[in-house]
């Protein structure tokens, strides 16, 4: 293990702890008694007290935090108040929809972004570059839920190619499932793809100005040869960081897009939990999403070490 990876792993753990504390506190310090919030103002005091006991709210905050942490670590999530089932069961089912959706949109956006970004950079300041950049500028400016509405309007309402929402379920076959995820994925991927394309372009352009690229040209490599052999890999280093951050945005984006397409994923779960004041569910799903994001960023760091020899693991 190199020091670099060890440090990163340590950061990963610390960030996770910090995130859990932040989640816990932001749901805790808020004014009002959670039990009262859950039951509403009209509920009798006795019911509120009973719920407080059930939720363990009578115990000190610090204790409850560590309890919660311990439960998370052993995989025993809380019990949903509204559904009266373990949160784990709720999540297990829904993550199988949200995660594929996030991955699908990530794939879409990365594919399109890399192609467009590299193309634009190679045609720097020419018509191809300008039009790709104009398009991506537009892509960034469109709210993803509006794009989702437009897609529904066009492909579902006007053309009738896709259903306007819902998820058929994996048991109906892979193709059918992907089909019901494709419109949501496109609406998520467009914005992120546009951002990534711009970023890729500028990373490639930046790298093309490096001295070692001039060296490569002085060796007799053609412009194109230089691009493939010396520019792309170096330019990917900053691009990968952005990809990591984008994954977080995609996950968050699922919340709203799932709502538009009425897809029963984690996003909808969390929205419903919020409107039901089901704090246990909110807390557990939020920390799950945060953990995913932190984990992805850790993976990005590890990828760094693979790509960049300056960070290559050294022997202990």
């Amino acid at each position, binding site marked *: 293990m190199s020091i670099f990876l060890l440090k990163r792993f340590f950061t990963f753990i610390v*960030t996770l702890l910090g*995130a859990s504390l*932040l*989640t816990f506190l932001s749901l805790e310090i808020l004014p009002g008694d959670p039990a009262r919030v859950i039951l509403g103002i009209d509920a009798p005091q006795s019911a509120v007290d009973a719920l407080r006991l059930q939720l363990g709210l009578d115990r000190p905050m610090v204790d409850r935090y560590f309890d919660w942490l311990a439960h998370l670590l052993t995989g025993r999530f809380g019990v949903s108040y509204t559904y009266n089932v373990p949160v784990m069961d709720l999540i297990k089912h829904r993550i199988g929809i949200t995660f594929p959706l996030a991955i699908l949109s990530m794939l879409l956006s990365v594919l399109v972004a890399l192609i467009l970004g590299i193309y634009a950079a190679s045609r720097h300041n020419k018509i191809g570059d300008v039009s790709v950049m104009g398009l991506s500028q537009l892509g*960034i*400016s*469109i709210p993803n839920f509006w794009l989702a509405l437009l897609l529904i309007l066009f492909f579902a309402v006007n053309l009738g190619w896709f259903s306007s929402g819902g998820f058929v379920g994996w048991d109906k076959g892979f193709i059918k499932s992907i089909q019901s995820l494709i419109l949501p994925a496109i609406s998520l991927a467009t914005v992120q793809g546009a951002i990534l394309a711009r970023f890729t372009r500028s990373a490639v352009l930046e790298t093309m100005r490096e001295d070692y690229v001039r060296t490569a040209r002085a060796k007799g490599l053609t412009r194109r040869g230089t691009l493939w052999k010396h520019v792309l890999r170096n330019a990917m280093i900053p691009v990968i960081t952005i990809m990591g951050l984008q994954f977080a945005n995609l*996950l968050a984006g699922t919340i*709203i897009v799932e709502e538009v397409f009425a897809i029963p994923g984690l996003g909808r779960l969390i929205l419903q939990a919020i*409107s039901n004041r089901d704090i246990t569910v909110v807390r557990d799903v939020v920390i799950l999403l945060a953990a995913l994001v932190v984990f992805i960023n850790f993976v990005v760091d590890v990828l760094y070490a693979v790509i960049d020899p300056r960070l290559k693991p050294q022997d202990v």
Partner: protein
Amino acid sequence: MFNKKNIEFLKRAIKHRSFIVGGSMTLLLIFCAFISLFWTPWDPIKQNLLIRHSPPSWEHLLGTDQFGRDIFSVIMAGSQNSISVGLVSVSIGIIFGVSIGLLASTKRGWVEELIMRLCDFMYAFPAILLAIMLVATIGQGSINAMVAIGIFSIPVFARLTRGAANAIWAREYILASRSAGKGLFRITIEHVLPNILSVIIVQATIQFALAILAEAALSFLGLGAQPPTPSWGRMLSEARSMIYLNPWLAVYPGIAIAISVLGLNLLGDGLRDLVDPRLARKR
């Protein structure tokens, strides 16, 4: 004020395409919001059920919605909401974020480490997720949405400021100032802040655009501006159930959002080009 450097800057600015286009779009947005304070073609709040879902006409430029309100008027009035969200949240972000970032880069050592770690924690949450969470717990409404969005732009400004300030701290004129005996606080105010201001302004425009998007999303989910305050996000959410009946309802507010965001983004990009001396020299 009008020294050679500034004139040079203005000269380049009027030749810069995206700066001019983005600037005019942004001005349009501000103009729209300003006018709507005093006048809109129709009352954007008052309902008139007799003329529900009427198609575009000279009387109602973009038609009317399910309550018979003039869509054009509602959109005009909705710009106020977007602008105030942008202003408030960006101000929160700048005031706290920039101070925190400056503190980190002035103090270094464990203070910097701690602040940057805290920012990392915030980054672990997708901003919109936490905004949703926060708004859901402290309650819905415009003000809460603004605050929530503002809070999540704090780490963005903090990081940016720290990075830019650290670069300035490494300059020799800071060393010169220190060897002249100037204290850290005065150096920060007199040398560091003025030199990173342009970077912050560029980020502020971008962040303004992001705030408009985020608020629209919150309102779309019913967590932002509450009726009857006109809001583009909520208009879209209301249009959702009318999508078979009156699909145009779902189009106009989106265009309004896109134009505002596009304008601000273009403006930000243009500004970035204009203040980046590296690009200025190279062209």
